[in-house]
């Protein structure tokens, strides 16, 4: 082996090392880049060999970072969503509480002057404001429901695209590795970066096949990427509630299967699902619960009074009805309809009903507040009466075992809440003894402090507990988010410590390999001088 060859191997190696360093420096801020090291080995015939350019990547830390990222983005998305509700109820001067107070304060003025048109007009005015505000709160929350549906669609598009890219990279990497024998670092970086961005959207489980191919599964083992294939998820309307977008996959027979929301708890998708199930549904139900309690109590009392025309009072407020959805997978065609019967019995929870014995008309009813399921059989009027509700079945003959129904008693009732009294004379302030009779107005005023909501809380107490619920929930999410941010940052620092580029280090490498190059060149120069010396002997 000549000194030239040795020098050249050094020159060559130094060039590769300088390339690697330059690559590290230029990619210092590139997302998903893992720093590279040039591995040298001694050549058996003298000189030096580059045995490889190694990517500094730790699968263990990377997967820790991925799951921390999932948890973090889940909480971040949850926080973004819940902050909107938190801000909605934040202003104590503009929330629902002062509007309810205004309404009852107008009733108080009516007590003082029962036949005064101004006092009567004030009652109508405050009732209008209160009802429009409650409707607008409901509208705001319903917009959030729609946004959640839209965002789930967006997330799924991104997840499917990313999954397809990872499957393609699996193939590209296998091809490149087969061609050169070494896996291409840049493709590996891309693939790991894609797994990380997938983790931002949904919590994934990564398994590495023999041969280095990535298999990715989500939600209880549902495969998303398997080798060079990816499986697209689809957004579908839930069978239980057609207004609710959930995820589904196609099984081997090509049928769409619904994936339960509860299986997703990380990533921005999991954050959306958790927010919807834990907070949005409940807040909407509680707003509805307060609204229906107010409307039914005021209506009932108002209908007992007599107005200025001497007629019995009519309903003061209109209110929506409970919603019942028949599961789209039901084989029977029986339809259940629901009505409010006793405001004090309402719970504000949703219910799942399942036909447990069609012959006798027996239903198993599960209240979604964690309480134990109970069974109830249709009465002679084909009705189920429980928790302040009456459900009526249209035709018991077409009831089929196992059919399911979802009951949302108070979810959307606030949307139909409106003041029905426009004529001041039609306010039933008295009990029929004349225009100065204020007994019914007094009874209406007493509703302000009566335990109307669920028979346990006054309207204001119920609203306060709603605000407390939102505040607590937001607070918990914020605390968890802060903790998760700290944890994620720690893991990211660890990951960066392994795979990140340090410019100072690369600066020393640059100098080092520059000198190495100069030294190797010197070897060749010396070799030349040596040759010249030999050649000069003849002259």
């Amino acid at each position, binding site marked *: 082996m000549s000194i030239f060859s040795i020098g050249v191997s050094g020159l060559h190696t130094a060039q590769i090392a300088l390339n690697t360093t330059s690559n590290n420096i230029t990619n*210092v801020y590139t997302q998903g880049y893992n*720093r590279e090291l040039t591995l040298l080995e001694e050549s058996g015939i003298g000189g030096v060999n580059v045995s490889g350019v190694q990517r500094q990547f730790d699968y263990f830390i990377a997967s820790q970072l991925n799951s921390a990222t999932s948890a973090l983005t889940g909480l971040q998305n949850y926080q973004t969503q819940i*902050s909107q509700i*938190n*801000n909605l*109820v*934040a202003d*104590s001067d503009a929330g629902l*509480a*002062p509007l309810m*107070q205004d309404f*009852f*304060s107008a009733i*108080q*003025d009516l*007590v*003082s*002057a*029962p*036949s*005064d048109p101004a006092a009567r007009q004030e009652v109508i005015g405050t009732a209008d404001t209160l009802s429009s505000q409650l409707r607008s709160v409901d509208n705001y929350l319903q917009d959030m429901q729609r946004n959640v549906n839209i965002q789930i669609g967006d997330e799924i598009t991104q997840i499917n695209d990313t999954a397809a890219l990872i499957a393609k990279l699996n193939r590209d990497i296998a091809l490149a590795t087969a061609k050169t024998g070494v896996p291409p670092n840049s493709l590996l970086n891309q693939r790991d970066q894609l797994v990380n961005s997938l983790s931002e959207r949904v919590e994934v489980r990564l398994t590495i096949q023999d041969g280095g191919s990535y298999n990715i599964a989500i939600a209880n083992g549902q495969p998303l990427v398997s080798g060079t294939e990816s499986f697209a998820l689809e957004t579908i309307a839930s069978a239980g509630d057609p207004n609710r977008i959930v995820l589904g996959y196609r099984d081997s027979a090509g049928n769409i299967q619904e994936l339960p929301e509860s299986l997703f708890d990380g990533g921005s998708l999991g954050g959306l699902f958790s927010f919807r199930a834990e907070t949005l549904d409940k807040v909407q139900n509680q707003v509805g619960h307060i609204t229906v309690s107010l409307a039914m109590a005021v209506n009932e009392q108002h209908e007992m009074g007599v107005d200025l025309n001497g007629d019995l009072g009519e309903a003061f407020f209109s209110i929506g009805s409970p919603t019942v959805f028949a599961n789209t997978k039901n084989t029977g065609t029986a339809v259940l309809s629901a009505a409010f019967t006793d405001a004090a019995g309402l719970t504000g929870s949703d219910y799942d009903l399942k036909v447990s014995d069609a012959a006798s008309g027996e239903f198993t009813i599960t209240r979604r507040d964690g309480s134990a399921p109970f069974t109830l059989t249709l009465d002679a009027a084909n009705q189920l009466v429980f928790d302040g509700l009456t459900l009526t079945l249209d035709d018991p003959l077409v009831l089929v075992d196992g059919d399911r129904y979802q009951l949302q008693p108070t979810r959307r009732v606030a949307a139909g809440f409106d003041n029905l009294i426009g004529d001041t004379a039609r306010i039933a302030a008295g009990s029929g*003894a*004349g*225009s*100065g*009779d*204020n*007994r019914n107005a*007094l009874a209406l*005023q*007493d509703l*302000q*402090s009566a335990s109307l909501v669920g028979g346990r809380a006054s309207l*204001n*107490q119920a609203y*306060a507990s709603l*605000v*407390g619920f*939102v*505040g*607590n929930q*937001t*607070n918990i999410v*914020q605390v968890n988010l802060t903790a998760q941010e700290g944890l994620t*940052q720690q893991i*990211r*620092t660890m990951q*960066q*410590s*392994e*795979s*990140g*580029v*340090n*410019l*100072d*280090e690369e*600066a*020393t490498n640059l*100098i080092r390999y520059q000198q190495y190059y100069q030294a190797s060149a010197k070897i060749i120069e010396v070799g030349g001088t040596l040759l010249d010396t030999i050649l000069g002997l003849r002259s």
Partner: protein
Amino acid sequence: MRISTLTMYNQSVTSINRQQGDFLKIGQQIATGRRLLTPADDPQAATKALGVAQSKAVAEQYGDARVGARSALTQQESVLNSISDALVRTKSLMVQAANATLSDADRASIASEMRGVMEMVLGQANATDGNGHYLFGGYRDNSPPFVRDVSGSVVYVGDSNDRQVRIDASRLMEAADSGDGVFLAIQSGAGYVAEADAANSGSATFVGPRVVDSSDPGFGAAYDISFSVVGTDTSYSINGGPPVTYQPGVAVTFGGLSMTFEGVPADGDSLTVDKASQMNTNLFATFEKVIATLETPAQTDAQKASLANTISTSMREFDNSFDNILTVRASSGARLNELDALDLVEENRILNYQQTLSELVDLDYVEAISDYTLRQVGLQAAQKTFVDINKLSLFNLL
């Protein structure tokens, strides 16, 4: 440990972000003066604050109710005050009319003045508040409560309900008194009234009844005294009991009461003695009775006796009605006092609520400003650190 360049930047950025967030939040708190910006800042305090705000609003609501009640009671008091003055005048007219030396013409002129007084009282009883609602109609406040029927006598067409207003959490107060309670009723404790039968033809007049022994077992019952004349023997019997020889000027006692008779009763003359509340209690009926009597000429002894007896009975009835109106006035005065007392209590309560509310949601400025300065220093430190770390690059030395 290796620190990557990215980590250094990221950490600086994270720490600047956090400091900036904290700094802005304190700034926002200072700008709004509120410690609680959203319920999430302190869910418990936010919930409590809503409860306290409600209590405060309700307290203020009761305050409004008291303003209404006070205005109604004050109007009522001013009306009853002028009615009291009218009744004082009535009594002095009655004293004049009782003078036996008056001629029919004199009595007619007293009657005419009394009619004027009665019209004035009637007008006041039909008084309205500023909005045209009748004060004494009970719940029927949209038409005059006292009207004349076909025979010309005053009847009450209101009802006997007193309008109540909630002036405190556990206090319903009558903000008005119905006309029947004021003008048609008397106090149940008012004494006995004796009334001669209108068909009496004798010249007997009575004095009394006077209560001599209220512990008498017969006290409180109604008595009917009837006279019978057989030949020259005049006797009376009480409630159809055994006849007793009549002696003018000698006190007749029964049931703890004592009465004296003068003059000569005719056979079949009678009079009723009963608790005042069981007899005529209608102020306007009393007026009408007295005016009718005064306008009737009194020539014979029997007519003069009837006149004297009616005046004596009516005198007691006016007194009782007057007492009743004074009692109503005293009661509304007490209610006005109660309103004042409640105002004071409520004022303190509202102040307490305000203070609690302030403690729950408002900002402690001293603490906040010192925090503000601290955060400012923190933010500046984070910024300085970032700049300093960035200066330290090996590339700067190459």
